[in-house]
């Protein structure tokens, strides 16, 4: 009671070198970040890395200096040999006989062969950063006592503070509260009073996501770009170049806009904007952009280019505009749909429609009973949800529904999906039914080739010159191109194609070319991967009948801004409608997986309702020389007890044993005659993915080219796709981390349901079984006698203790 203010932490009297997060200021415990000119301590507080590492990672800084009063004096950490200052690469090696160590970078200096001759021991190289903090002999870790008495800062606060520093480098933690940055946006609701309230809640979330995206993209400027020039068939200049940083951060996609600038002295400075037409793949790391204008292109120069990402607000603007239209324009959706979407009680309505005699559509496979039921039901309802678990023929069902909707003669049908790939797949299927389909692409994507390019509006217009109607149209087109693309002209262009079906992405439905058109029937495929405002873009074009297709038991929409995600932007409209009590019609027959592979996902994720449309015989690769522990079950869990996870090797976030085992399995499959493109490897972390790719190419027993054709990616990249064989690597990061991504049931579901002919999971069963869902999976594999260990040539059942499965609560 004597000193009540003792616990109250006060930053103002602290020395300059106090940790900018927690205030700890023992000179032996702090490090100076050369880039942001701030000090941070080597204590973790309640986070998974020390404060200095937290800062370096979040600020993307790499160089540091030690304090002059610390044990090593004022020292800039750098490689003794090459001067490299990236602390993520630095480590030390001892002399063979003397008590002396030297700082060297991991590559190439610590690998140079003549080090050995000079009495150094390079095999002892160890990184300066271990388990996400600096080695304690280099920078002391503040005592637990000191850490507890310093300011307790959470990872959330660290994030916010780092964000704040981007605008105001002098900001203090106290400023967080003052600026209201700490405020959370209003949570999404289950029901809304009206569309104004709906807009008032979603509008700010879309804004948050837009701001986040903008900041991220605009921070991606890269210099020292070396360019190679070419000219496309359309006479436009194409620039090829590689990025020094991996593409992971840029997350470039076809159609993205980049600005290339010349800053050299060989000619006057130049800047030009172009669309991405090629991204890095397994074969080449090059990126290509097609420039909008050829004027002044410095074709003779190759060096001294700078690259900026051009952020476009289009998709966010279209979401905001859809929310607004929904609120103010009562003709934007039919009353029934309006109230249903807002969660109001409405009496059910059956639509008048002439049900077809035959439900299967021409050109498409015959429907099974649950597909027929789905088609029949949705045709009579104004609002329906179709849930398509993996491999159940969702796209065929959607295409068939669209076919029959067109036959009802209610005007053209609008078909959307969040991604271009999904739209293309569906477009192809609908085209097979003989309907007149137009694929509407963003202008920036017109140069990109796809399997349905011939259905793209711009190509259809070009090919229809022979028709007098279209001749007129071409004139009109030229006219309006001149008149700066008048909306009316654009709408006429689409009308002239007399299309039965318009296919585009959800965001594409906000294209001005559709603005003057009305679509009473709308189908959205993969709708569980779209945010709610994204889904609303096609809906507000006069919708009277809405069909949402998807699977809320697989991955949901990607929302980058954590705040917006927390507030509920990552919940899809489909999911909310399910919670509101609209029962999805579930497709129940799966045609992808060997029955042994579908059984677990069916029981855990779909209440055991999945039936198999394929027999075991159809999904066994006859003559495949592969050591399945149970010949009738093409699956096993390969127990791997890699100790690297907690070692101090510096690559503790990697699991070498697991990567080596995955490589052996892949090699064995290749040897048995499986084509590399039929194998998929799923790894949870980017670090492990890159390591896996390299490991296979350099250590694999077979030709490097074969391994290059094997797709190694995250679960998310495999959603909506299938492979013959899937190898799943389960590495967790290390002792300060839980099982991370593997906790998400939806992700596990996707991972387990990609393979047609076989699944092999590689991981540590003991560690994984601590998590309820994994415990069930492991128990299942054990019951099937498919939990094994040992060399591939003589796999034996693994009897390691795993926890008893607890009951799963949905």
């Amino acid at each position, binding site marked *: 009671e004597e000193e009540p203010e003792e616990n109250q932490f006060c930053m103002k009297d602290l020395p300059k070198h106090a940790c900018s997060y927690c205030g700890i200021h023992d000179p032996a415990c702090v490090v100076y970040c050369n880039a942001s000119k701030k000090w941070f301590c080597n204590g973790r507080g309640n986070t998974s890395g020390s404060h200095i590492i937290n800062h370096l990672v979040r600020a993307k800084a790499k160089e540091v200096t030690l304090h002059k009063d610390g044990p090593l004096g004022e020292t800039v950490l750098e490689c003794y040999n*090459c001067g490299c200052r990236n602390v993520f690469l630095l480590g030390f090696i001892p002399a063979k006989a003397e008590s002396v160590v030297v700082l060297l970078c991991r590559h190439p200096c610590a690998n140079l062969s003549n080090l050995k001759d000079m009495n150094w021991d390079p095999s002892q190289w160890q990184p300066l950063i271990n388990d996400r903090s600096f080695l*304690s002999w280099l920078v002391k870790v503040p005592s637990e006592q000191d850490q507890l008495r310093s300011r307790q800062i959470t990872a959330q606060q660290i994030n916010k503070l780092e964000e704040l520093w981007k605008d105001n480098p002098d900001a203090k933690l106290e400023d967080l509260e003052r600026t209201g940055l700490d405020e959370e946006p209003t949570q999404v609701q289950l029901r809304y009073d009206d569309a104004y309230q709906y807009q008032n809640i979603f509008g700010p979330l879309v804004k948050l996501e837009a701001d986040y995206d903008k900041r991220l993209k605009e921070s991606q400027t890269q210099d020292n770009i070396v360019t190679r020039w070419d000219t496309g068939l359309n006479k436009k200049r194409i620039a090829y170049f590689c990025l020094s940083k991996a593409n992971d951060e840029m997350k470039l996609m076809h159609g993205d806009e980049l600005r290339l600038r010349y800053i050299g002295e060989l000619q006057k400075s130049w800047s030009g904007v172009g669309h991405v037409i090629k991204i890095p793949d397994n074969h080449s790391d090059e990126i290509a952009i097609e420039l909008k204008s050829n004027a002044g292109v410095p074709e003779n120069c190759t060096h001294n280019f700078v690259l900026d990402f051009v952020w476009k607000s289009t998709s966010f603007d279209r979401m905001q505009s859809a929310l607004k239209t929904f609120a103010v324009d009562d003709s934007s959706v039919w009353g029934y749909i309006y109230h249903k979407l807002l969660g109001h009680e409405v009496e059910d309505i059956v639509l008048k429609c002439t049900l077809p005699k035959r439900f299967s559509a021409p050109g498409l496979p015959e429907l099974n009973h649950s597909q027929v039921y789905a088609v029949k039901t949705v045709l009579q309802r104004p609002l329906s949800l179709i849930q398509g678990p993996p491999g159940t023929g969702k796209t065929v069902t959607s295409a068939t529904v669209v076919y029959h909707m067109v036959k009802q003669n209610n005007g053209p049908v609008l078909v959307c999906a969040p991604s271009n790939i999904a739209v293309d797949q569906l477009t192809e299927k609908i085209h097979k039914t003989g309907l007149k389909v137009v694929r509407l692409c963003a202008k920036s994507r017109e140069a990109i080739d796809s399997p349905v390019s011939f259905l793209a509006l711009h190509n259809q217009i070009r090919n229809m010159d022979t028709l007098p109607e279209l001749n007129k149209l071409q004139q009109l087109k030229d006219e309006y191109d001149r008149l700066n693309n008048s909306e009316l002209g654009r709408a006429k262009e689409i009308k002239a194609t007399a299309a039965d079906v318009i296919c585009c992405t959800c965001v594409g439905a906000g294209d001005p070319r559709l603005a003057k058109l009305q679509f009473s029937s709308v189908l959205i495929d993969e709708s569980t991967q779209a945010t709610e405002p994204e889904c609303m873009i096609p809906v507000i074009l006069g919708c009277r009948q809405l069909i949402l297709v998807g699977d809320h038991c697989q991955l949901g929409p990607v929302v980058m801004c954590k705040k917006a995600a927390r507030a509920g932007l990552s919940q899809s409209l489909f999911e909310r409608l399910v919670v509101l009590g609209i029962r999805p019609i579930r497709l129940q027959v799966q045609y992808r997986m060997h029955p042994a592979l579908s059984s677990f996902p069916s029981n855990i994720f779909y209440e055991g309702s999945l039936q198999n449309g394929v027999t075991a015989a159809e999904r066994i690769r006859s003559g495949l020389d592969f050591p399945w522990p149970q010949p009738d079950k093409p699956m096993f869990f390969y127990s791997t007890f890699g100790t690297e996870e907690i070692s101090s090797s510096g690559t503790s976030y990697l699991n070498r044993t697991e990567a080596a085992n995955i490589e052996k399995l892949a090699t064995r499959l290749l040897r048995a005659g499986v084509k590399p493109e039929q194998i998929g490897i799923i790894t949870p972390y980017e670090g492990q993915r890159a390591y896996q790719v390299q490991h296979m190419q350099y250590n694999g027993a077979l030709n490097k080219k074969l391994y290059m054709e094997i797709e190694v990616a995250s679960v998310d990249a495999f959603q909506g796709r299938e492979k013959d064989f899937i190898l799943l690597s389960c590495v967790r990061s290390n002792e300060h981390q839980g099982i*991370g991504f593997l906790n998400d049931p939806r992700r596990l579901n996707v991972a387990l349901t990609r393979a047609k002919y076989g699944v092999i999971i590689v991981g540590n069963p003991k560690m994984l079984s601590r998590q309820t869902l994994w415990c069930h999976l492991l128990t299942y594999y054990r019951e099937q006698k498919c939990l094994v260990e040992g060399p591939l040539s003589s796999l034996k059942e693994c009897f390691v203790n795993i926890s008893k499965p607890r009951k799963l609560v949905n």
Partner: protein
Amino acid sequence: ETDEEVKVLKPKVAVCKEDDDFMSAFDQMMNDSIQARTQESLKVPHVDIAIPTQVKNKTKKLALPGQGISDKEDEEKDKEKSGTTGLKFVLMTRKGNKQQLTDFEIPMTAEFATKFKEREEAEKLE
């Protein structure tokens, strides 16, 4: 009156999305750094890192128990404080073009120190 021990609870990791994100960002950064390095074709100076003679003599001395440069009493005190024994080392760094040698201590708990000790003992036996 009683000399009650103050029990300080170890700071606990607060599991949250932001922390998970940090961990994957860390992996990413480590990986990007390594990738960028292996892809770059680096012009590295020829290695010529001889162990300086003054270090040779000094460390030999240090390696002998009881004859360290630092005061023996101090050493004892340090041991008491940290509860562990450390190994004396010399760190070689560069300040501009000048070589810099700094004495420091690696706690015996560090994996590296243990290994060093084992090797040293093995050599003594020979």
